[in-house]
């Protein structure tokens, strides 16, 4: 926890973001046990109008999950409120998802949701309710040092969510609690049982929260006609080998389903949005030694020069040794010690120094001279906070 010694929990109000799931439920229970003045809150996000029981289990913020969260709140004796964020979420995160795909990128909307929705909109609401902290059920840790706040990976590597939390700044971290970050998933489930929470044996929610069935291709086809834009499949030597259905439907590193025949296996190497072309090549062409990232956030402040870091280029990727060079105002050049495969524009590139998450940015498709300029569009927290 943040600075545990000087805090008297009873004088501190914490808004807990509750989803009805076991992680946020246990987070809330821990805070209540610690004596905080806890307020449960859930955001009603937009999700596809859908049907079918299996679809419902995967979608966030359904009426059922709301009922679960409310039951947990009632059991804990804490207030519980639901914030209507449907339109805002639809216009920012869902639209962002669609726009990124149209641009030939593969976005991680959870990063954007943390940036704009959870740690801006919700945090502003929490602060407006005189909360000192916003707590979530994320698997990550915050350490308070004399030099400032650090974001640390969770001990449970499989569950560690620091990757999507790289957007947090000192201002955010000073007002954030991750009550379950120290625990493994198994320990959290155990705690849920010990606390007698009704969600102890709930299924994990998977995939993107706003998708009815986890099928993003179907979603894109349904919600954005323009993703169906056939174009050429071109190999790295410039030869046209066939047609693709629309860049959104392919991922970097994909081999199957390209509809082209070739002597050696061909993989998707790049998406050229400008030419609407899918670039394919042999396995060797997948490797990149250098990446650019934009919208870069350095949690401990921008370093003076290049730093050594282990970089994750996907949520589930292993961190890979690299040197990260900050480039003003909010970009970075990442040079890997060894070529990496599967780097995809739109995904997060997150930098680690051991267990410390140094920060990260979004992998850009632009050539190194044309990285996105301008500071991160991180909306400002309200009030007197710097």
């Amino acid at each position, binding site marked *: 926890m943040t600075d545990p010694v000087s805090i008297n929990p009873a004088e501190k109000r914490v808004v807990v973001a509750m989803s009805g799931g076991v992680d946020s439920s246990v987070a809330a229970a821990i805070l209540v046990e610690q004596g905080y003045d806890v307020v449960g809150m859930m955001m*009603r996000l937009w999700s596809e109008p859908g049907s079918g029981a299996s679809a419902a289990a995967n979608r966030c913020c359904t009426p059922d999950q709301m009922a679960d969260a409310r039951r947990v709140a009632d059991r804990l004796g*804490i*207030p519980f*409120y639901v914030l*209507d964020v449907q339109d805002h979420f639809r216009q920012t995160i869902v639209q962002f998802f669609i726009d990124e795909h149209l641009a030939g990128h593969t976005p991680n909307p959870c990063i954007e949701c943390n940036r704009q929705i959870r740690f801006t909109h919700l945090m*502003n609401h929490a602060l*407006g309710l005189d909360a000192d902290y916003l707590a979530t059920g994320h698997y990550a840790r915050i350490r308070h040092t004399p030099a400032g706040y650090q974001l640390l990976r969770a001990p449970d590597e499989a569950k560690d969510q620091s990757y999507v939390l790289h957007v947090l700044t000192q201002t955010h971290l000073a007002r954030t609690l991750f009550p379950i970050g120290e625990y493994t998933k198994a320990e959290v489930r155990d705690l849920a049982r010990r606390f007698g929470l009704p969600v102890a044996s709930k299924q994990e929610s998977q995939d993107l929260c706003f998708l009815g069935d986890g099928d993003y291709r179907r979603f894109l086809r349904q919600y954005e006609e323009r993703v169906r834009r056939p174009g050429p499949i071109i190999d790295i030597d410039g030869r046209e080998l066939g047609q693709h259905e629309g860049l959104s439907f392919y991922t970097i590193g994909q081999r199957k389903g390209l509809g082209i025949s070739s002597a050696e296996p061909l993989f998707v190497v790049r998406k050229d949005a400008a030419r609407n072309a899918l670039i394919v090549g042999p396995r060797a062409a997948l490797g990149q030694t250098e990446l650019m990232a934009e919208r870069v956030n350095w949690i401990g402040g921008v370093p003076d020069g290049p730093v050594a870091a282990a970089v994750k280029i996907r949520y589930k990727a292993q961190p890979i040794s690299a040197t990260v060079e900050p480039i003003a105002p909010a970009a970075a050049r990442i040079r890997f010690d060894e070529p990496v495969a599967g780097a995809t524009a739109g995904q997060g590139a997150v930098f680690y120094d051991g267990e410390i998450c140094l920060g990260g940015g979004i992998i850009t498709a632009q050539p190194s001279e044309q990285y996105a300029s301008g500071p991160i569009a991180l909306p400002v927290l309200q*009030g007197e906070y710097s």
Partner: protein
Amino acid sequence: MLKGSRTNTIYLDHGATTPLDSAVAAAMQPYWSDLYGNPSSLHTTGRVAARAVEDARETYAEWLGARPREIVFTGCGSESNNMALRGVMWAAMSSGIRGHLITSAVEHNAVGATALQLRDVFGFEVTILPVDGEGLISVDDVAAAIRPDTVLISVMAAQNEIGTIQPWREIGELARSCGVVFHTDAVQLVAGRRWDLANEPVDLLTIAPHKFYGPKGVGVLYVREGVEMLSTLTGGGQEDGRRAGTLNVPLIVGAAAAFRLAQETREERLAHFLPLRERLITGVLESLPDVAILTGHRTQRLSHHASFAFRGLSGNDLLMHLDLAGIAASSGSACSSGNPKPSAVLQALGLGPEWTKSGLRLTIGLQNTAEQIDRTVEALARAVQKLEAMGQAIPA
């Protein structure tokens, strides 16, 4: 077990429900386990219970100026409303010809939703009359809407969300002169007025005791003798065949005790409510002149009722802030699942979209004090200030 601890120290939602008066609770007590008989039974145990029910019925008859057989006990105010509308409209059907119902755009859902179902599912003709900017229905509009096939007019005596007292008396007289049945949902008004239904132009009247310190789970419907009403809850013939179901004796006893108490202390209660209502209205309008408006009629309104709208704000957000400040209130667009809709009543007043999700209702009770009113005004002003500051940061 883990327990956070939080209560509302200032309860200002008496329009939603009220605490059970202790004398009323005491009156109910014998009928749970001592005098527990089923009033329909032939034996002594049953007759004792039946006597209590009849006493309760006579209490209502006395204080309403009606006859005992005109008093029907139901399960709640909503049920009484359902019975009145369905029962009268169905009874008036002959040879399958469905009659015409006139109601207003600001009725409680128990009337509104029932009217819509009568229209959309059962094929009745329904006219829903608009109201003016203060929520008042026009008697002339009612007159103009009456047709040869009009069977029933249902207009509430006082509006729950905005407090406006309707010209129910004039409408009743109009209905009578046209041979049309008149029902009024008097749930919010009944305890605040001296009634003499024998001499007043009302044919059916809905009462909900839990609004005046009586128990929940029981309602009353006054049905003037001679009004044809088909039973909507059929079965064992209780309540003269008008509403089946074993009578809930303790609740009925409590309902009557609460009504008697309300009528006997009516003047004192009004003298308690009115100054507090004025203090609240003045306090809010003076501290938030640019953003708050009073909704409903300024003077022709329930004595314990204050309701406001706040430009550009969300009623749900206000309720959240107030709740955390220990204050209980309500909103016409409250939604516990984060999907608030604009208030139909505020829309009916002609208010634009920047107002219609912002309704806030504060209803005063016997335990409220001037100091509590002042603290509420402060808390509300503070909440508005916080929400306005936040509203500027979030993209539209």
